[in-house]
């Protein structure tokens, strides 16, 4: 049961136990005090009653003494009878007082009744003795004194003895019970202390164990995780805070494991991306044909990162429209065939070109200027990265993903770096083409010069020149006009008809 209690409850239970033991001990103390108080009360009451009885006995003795003196001195009436009356009255008062006291048991009540009866008989007898004495029957008075009154006295004393015994027994009982109570309480007290020590030790050990064992188990689990052992952890089955902590720890470990593996995945992805980027760059440097280059870029990017779709737009000669020049998949082929183009400033691609900055839309449904393409229905996220040479925008690299949030800033950064290299490669390709054309022209001119130089006359030289230039330029008609100095109209010095065919 204790296993199911929380640590707080266990500690609370400990305090409760201590409290109860304190309560028990103090309760026993109170009970003991009560028992002692009762004993004292009983003893005091007993002493008081003993006192009362002694007083009663003395007043009886007073009565007897006066009667004896009366009989001895043979006097009646006057002083002696007053004295006798006083003694009798006091005796009766004592007797009444005794009867007025609260009676503790039936036996005492009977005894008091008997005493009162005997007291009444004594009064009667004293009256009789007085009467007999007045008549001068002193002998009879003596007989009454020594028979009837003695008998009364005996019975009176017997009753007193019974009463005293009863009182003594009450006191003895109270004392005995007090002693018993004390012994009992001593036993209980000792038991309580032993119990407190034993239970306290065992419970303390148990509670300590119930805390240290799971804590150690938890520490072992924590160590495992700190050593990057992310294998599945079984949560501890405790119902208490430690159990809760363990479950939280397991959850935390699960999260840690997930994010760790995600991190690893991302590092792998990034490595792959960098690798791809490097690869693309390396390949780009070797491709001088612009169209081939562009197509290669989209194909490789799409394959390397497993995007849904990748394509590249380049500005047309007028820098008005962005014309799609390469695209992946069937959608790409179709769009190429359709001559797909986007006006500057339109859509994500237009915006990227306009702003000369990448545009990322992780969720296309949230972007207002996003242009849906019926050929690419699965697009969920899209990014458009400008292809820049310095400030000049050559075109836009556009990547689409069919996963919501499938494209992140990391993709943008990567794509931007690829786009930059594409830009350089594009420029290289264009420069190459220009240089190639210039070289070819120089060669032709050189050839023509050679041919012209090989002629011997002006006429031939001009004819060769016209033919060669006509061939070189592909013009339908090539002619040389000579202008004389000062003449207004040039005279056709030589006219050579030439054709390119």
């Amino acid at each position, binding site marked *: *049961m204790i296993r199911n209690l929380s640590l707080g409850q266990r500690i609370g239970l400990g305090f409760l136990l201590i409290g109860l033991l304190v*309560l*028990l001990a103090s309760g026993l103390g109170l*009970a003991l005090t009560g*028992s002692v108080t*009762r004993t004292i009360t009983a003893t005091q009451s007993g002493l008081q009653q003993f006192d009362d009885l002694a007083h009663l006995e003395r007043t009886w003795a007073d009565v007897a003494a006066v009667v004896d003196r009366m009989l001895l001195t043979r006097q009646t009436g006057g002083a002696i009878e007053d004295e006798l009356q006083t003694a009798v009255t006091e005796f009766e008062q004592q007797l009444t007082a005794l009867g007025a006291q609260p009676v503790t048991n039936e036996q005492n009540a009977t005894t008091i009744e008997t005493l009162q009866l005997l007291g009444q008989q004594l009064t009667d007898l004293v009256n009789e003795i007085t009467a007999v004495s007045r008549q001068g029957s002193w*002998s009879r008075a003596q007989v009454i004194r020594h*028979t009837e009154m003695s008998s009364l006295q005996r019975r009176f004393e017997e009753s007193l003895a019974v009463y005293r015994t009863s009182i003594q027994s009450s006191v003895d009982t109270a004392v005995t019970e007090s002693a018993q109570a004390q012994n*009992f309480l001593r036993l209980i007290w000792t038991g309580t202390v032993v119990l407190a020590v034993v239970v306290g030790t065992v419970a303390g050990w148990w509670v300590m164990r119930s805390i240290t064992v799971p804590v150690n188990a938890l520490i072992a689990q924590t160590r495992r995780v700190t050593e990057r052992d992310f294998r599945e952890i079984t949560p501890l089955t405790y119902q*208490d805070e430690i159990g809760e902590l363990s479950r939280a720890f397991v959850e935390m470990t699960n999260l840690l494991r997930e994010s760790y593996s995600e991190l690893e995945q991302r590092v792998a992805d990034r490595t792959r991306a960098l690798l791809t980027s490097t690869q693309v760059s390396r390949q780009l440097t070797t491709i001088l044909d612009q169209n081939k280059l562009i197509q290669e870029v989209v194909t490789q990017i799409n394959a390397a990162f497993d995007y849904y779709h990748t394509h590249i737009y380049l500005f047309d000669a007028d820098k008005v429209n962005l014309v799609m020049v390469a695209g992946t998949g069937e959608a790409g082929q179709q769009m190429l065939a359709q001559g797909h183009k986007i006006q500057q400033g339109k859509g994500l691609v237009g915006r990227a070109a306009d702003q000369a900055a990448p545009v990322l839309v992780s969720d296309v449904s949230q972007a207002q200027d996003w242009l849906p393409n019926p050929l690419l229905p699965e697009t969920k996220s899209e990014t458009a990265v400008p292809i820049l040479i310095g400030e000049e925008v050559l075109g836009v690299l556009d990547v689409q993903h069919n996963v919501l949030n499938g494209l992140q800033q990391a993709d943008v950064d990567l794509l931007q770096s690829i786009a930059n290299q594409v830009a350089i490669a594009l420029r290289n390709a264009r420069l190459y083409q220009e240089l190639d054309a210039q070289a070819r022209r120089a060669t032709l001119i050189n050839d023509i010069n050679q041919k012209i130089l090989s002629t011997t006359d002006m006429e031939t030289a001009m004819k060769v020149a016209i033919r060669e230039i006509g061939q070189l330029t592909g013009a339908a008609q090539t002619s040389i006009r000579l202008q004389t100095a000062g003449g207004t109209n040039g005279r056709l010095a030589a006219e050579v008809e030439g054709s390119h065919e």
Partner: protein
Amino acid sequence: MFGKKSSIVLGFILLLIVLVALVGCSITASNPGESDTPSGAETAVPLRIGLLAPENSPFFVTLQEGAQEAANRLNVNLIVRDAGNDIAKQNEQIQEMIDMGVNAIVITAVDSTAVAEKIEAAAAAGIAIFTVDRSVDSNVVVSHIASDNTAGGKMAGDYLAETIGKQGSVVELEGIAGTSAAQDRGAGFNQAMATYPNITIVAKEVANFNREEGQTVFAQILADQPTINGVFAHNDEMILGAIAAAEEAGRANDIIFVGFDAVDDAVAALETGSLTATIAQQPAEMGRLGVENAVKYLQGETIPDNIAVDLALITR
């Protein structure tokens, strides 16, 4: 949630244990003697006690009155018989008590030895035997209740000696020979007399506790003894007889008479002056003590073998 509930329950159980323990303590401490109050207070069926007197003389009538008073007080059914000084009759009466199945017999034997056999039969029948005034020669008697007759005899002797001036001639009238009363009173009287060297016991005659016999015996002694200063009789009947004889002889005024028992006639004689002193027994008290002790014994109390009843000197 379970743990919390269970810890509350546990707490309550512990609290309950403590409370029960405390209450238990205070109950044991505060209700003393509840278990030891005497149960069957009074026996429902009244005890039956037979009171067997030897005769119906005033002494025994008074004794019987005292016994009756105690019997009434203690709710005892008292059956009274007197034997008219007839041993055979007293034995019959003992048998009657056995037949009735009384609880106890309180007896004053006509003769201490003659009734012993019957008394033992009664004791064998489960009847508690108490003797009053006169003992019975048997060890079945629970208790013997009597005046201290020896002390009484000595008291009477001392008073007589003082009154006659510790010198002179005295006469002793003895009771029925063989009765403890006569023996003890005589012994006490003679013990006292032995301390007065100037007093001579001139005559010692048996008059069987009887007034007429006392008169007859003392008349003879008067005739025999010219000087008699005092007379002690073992009972008032005999001394009253002696007074009558002395009065007849005209010598009553010369003699100090001391009796025993303080019966009414003796008290009257004290008041007229013919008797000088008597020793007051307490016959009523003896009767009471007989019945009271029989009841106590039957209720299981221990009774002493001998219960002495005080005596007192009653003077003129």
